């Protein structure tokens, strides 16, 4: 009896000890074990296992253990004192960890490594990896918005409306007015039951979408010194008014796709796939939903184009992520080798083929987006649009609930509960309060 009890206790204690021991990087059998963290998603896990196998083959002195999860898990690991040596995170989170010295500045590694150059990456992706005057991550991918469109629906409209000015496919000369006209024309209630069967487009009021229209119109969310919210400027109000009109005046976009929250995020592309949407402005992540039997959809003709141009320029929001190295890693040089490998051409190609946005590695993207005869025909717009991509400078600010409440104003607007000017002024008031509180607490930007 006694033996059984002690055995039981020993097993429990051994289990606890093992669970703690496996969290740490270690050196065993002459090989250093590094932990690598990435989002927990089956296709990414498969991709990462391939990357790890290739890395280990090149670096026999290193063994990589993959840990997967989301930012909550990563944060918990860092807080718990067992941070992964190399970790992927969304670019807007990088400053949070950099500011608290949880990750290493990579400037010295970059300067010392003759085989590595930041010039290999799209500048927008690199820009998102900085905090103040240092770079804290290597860019993995980005995902700016472009315009997806269903060619068949354009053709159908032209066939059915010979008396109207024909709709041209979206191209680089398209402006807001062209887009709005096409969206309105393509919206159809085919059976006359009062329910829209095909919407012309979607309008995104999320923080990952609407800033693009404001930038396109020459406006800004915050001033260059990050001290003043500028959402009440005429340029910003005009851009928001344009979005609002598509939604509530023309009714050429479903109001329920315009929300900020998660429910609507993935469904745009499904509706596009089902031909309930003629156009959508979204990121390359949508390709994942447009797959059929592992290949991009060919049930109907579709393509991608640059965003329509606003009065000022063709800006788009940069969303993406990068690889950080923990400041607690006992093996910074080996961690650097791993981080570097994860952004090289081999890893980037895998990432791109897995559907993780647009790889940050320019050469890879340029190679993969040219595929004559295979749709989408203008896939190379992903390269072109990178020149217009901008990280959201306001996303680095730790404003908590004030940021959320400011966004709610845009949300109310998208539901028709606020007029554009009112929403923009409310947004500015709430956001400014958050900015003032933040800079008061932190002593300035």
């Amino acid at each position: 009896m006694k033996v059984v009890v002690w055995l039981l206790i020993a097993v429990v204690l051994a289990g606890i000890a093992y669970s703690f021991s496996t969290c740490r990087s270690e050196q065993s059998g002459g090989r250093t074990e590094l932990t690598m963290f990435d989002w927990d998603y089956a296709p990414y896990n498969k991709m990462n296992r391939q990357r790890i196998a290739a890395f280990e083959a090149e670096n026999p002195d290193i063994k990589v253990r993959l840990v997967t999860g989301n930012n909550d898990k990563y944060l918990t690991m860092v807080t718990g004192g067992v941070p992964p040596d190399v970790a992927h995170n969304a670019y807007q989170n990088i400053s949070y960890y950099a500011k608290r010295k949880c990750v290493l500045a990579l400037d010295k590694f970059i300067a010392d490594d003759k085989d590595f150059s930041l010039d290999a990456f799209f500048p927008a992706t690199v820009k998102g990896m900085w905090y103040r005057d240092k770079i804290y991550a290597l860019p993995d991918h980005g995902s700016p918005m472009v315009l997806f469109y269903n060619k068949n629906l354009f053709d159908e409209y032209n066939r059915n409306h010979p008396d109207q000015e024909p709709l041209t496919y979206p191209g680089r000369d398209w402006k807001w007015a062209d887009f709005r006209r096409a969206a309105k024309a393509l919206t159809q209630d085919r059976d006359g039951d009062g329910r829209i069967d095909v919407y012309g487009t979607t309008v995104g009021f999320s923080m990952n979408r609407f800033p693009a229209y404001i930038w396109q119109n020459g406006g800004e969310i915050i001033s260059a010194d990050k001290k003043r919210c500028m959402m009440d400027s005429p340029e910003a109000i005009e851009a928001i008014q344009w979005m609002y009109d598509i939604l509530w005046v023309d009714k050429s976009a479903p109001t329920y796709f315009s929300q900020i929250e998660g429910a609507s995020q993935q469904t745009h592309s499904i509706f596009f796939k089902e031909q309930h949407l003629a156009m959508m402005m979204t990121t390359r992540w949508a390709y994942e939903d447009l797959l059929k039997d592992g290949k991009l959809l060919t049930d109907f003709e579709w393509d991608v184009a640059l965003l329509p141009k606003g009065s000022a320029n063709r800006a788009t929001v940069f969303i993406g992520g990068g690889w950080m190295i923990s400041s607690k890693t006992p093996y910074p040089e080996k961690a650097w080798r791993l981080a570097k490998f994860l952004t090289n051409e081999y890893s980037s190609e895998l990432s791109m083929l897995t559907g993780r946005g647009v790889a940050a590695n320019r050469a890879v993207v340029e190679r993969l987006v040219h595929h004559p005869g295979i749709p989408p025909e203008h896939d190379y717009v992903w390269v072109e649009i990178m020149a217009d991509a901008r990280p959201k400078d306001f996303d680095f600010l730790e404003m908590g609930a004030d940021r959320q409440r400011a966004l709610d104003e845009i949300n109310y607007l998208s539901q028709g509960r606020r007029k554009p000017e009112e929403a923009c002024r409310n947004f500015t008031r709430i956001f400014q309060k958050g900015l003032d509180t933040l800079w008061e607490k932190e002593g300035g930007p």
Partner: protein
Amino acid sequence: MKKTKTATTWRRRAALAGYLFILPNVLGFLIFTSLPVLASLLLSFAKWDLLRPPQWVGLQNFQNLLTDAHFWKNPFFAIPWITDCPLEHGFLFNTLVMMLAIPASILLSLFLAALLNQKLRGMILFRTLFFLPSITAGIGTMLLWMWLLNPDYGIVNLVFGHVYDALAWMASLVGWTWASWAQVRPAWLQDVTWSKPAMIMMGLWGSMGGMNMILYLAALSNVPPALYEAAKIDGAGAWQRFWKITWPMVSPTTFFIFVMSIIGGFQGGFQQAHIMTNGGPAGSTTTIGFYIYQNAYQWFRMGYAASVAWLLFLIVLVLTLINWRASKRLVHYG
């Protein structure tokens, strides 16, 4: 004498063995439950962003909480000392509204249990079917509900649309003109007004056929048939038999379900908000549980999150004590 000593030794050994057997559980409880609870209490008096050492701020978090309109704002009465907030409703109100599903869920569970308590062929199949939502993966059902609730193409609006059209047709017979369904159809999860009813509807679907129904089935099977027979002989009708026999006899179960639902209701709404709405639109589906999460993991205000959690604990504690007191009059342990 010797025999007594042996018995004592045996009892001691048995007790020791017992303690040793529960030791892993107790250790686990102490390490993974008690310590975090204690830590959260301490943290509620601190400011902590998780990555820098906590700073002691005394009662500041609780003072902030008392003036936090995100938490308290409600459509019924103004609280003079709360700070202004653009939200239509605070998160306590959201939580309470979503808890309106509790009485309906209890009654529906009892109703289902009564139906499934019949001795009919294939009843096991029905019991299984009604219990399925409880064992189906939450994320899967939530994603499914997101499609069911799609304003244009969801089944929910399709069904309601037909009902509405029929009513509109009848209204037109007496000269009333109703707006078309396309104009008035709810946008459910994407509308501030309809998001909470959508959550309630989904919650009811998940809870009425779940564990509560099983508990009621067990309780119903324990009601002595003789009581019903005697009542029938005395001329009691079906309603009287339910109200005078079934309801009192299952009242301990009802009490248990009610107390647990209240506790669960105050803590609930996190999964739905996290997966389906991110607490929106405009905070309309943010419950206290999700607000705690937002503060802790999105805004890195762990101390404030802990103070909200402790206020939630106090609310639940007081309500549970009230429930216990009320139970003395309302629950029959026959």
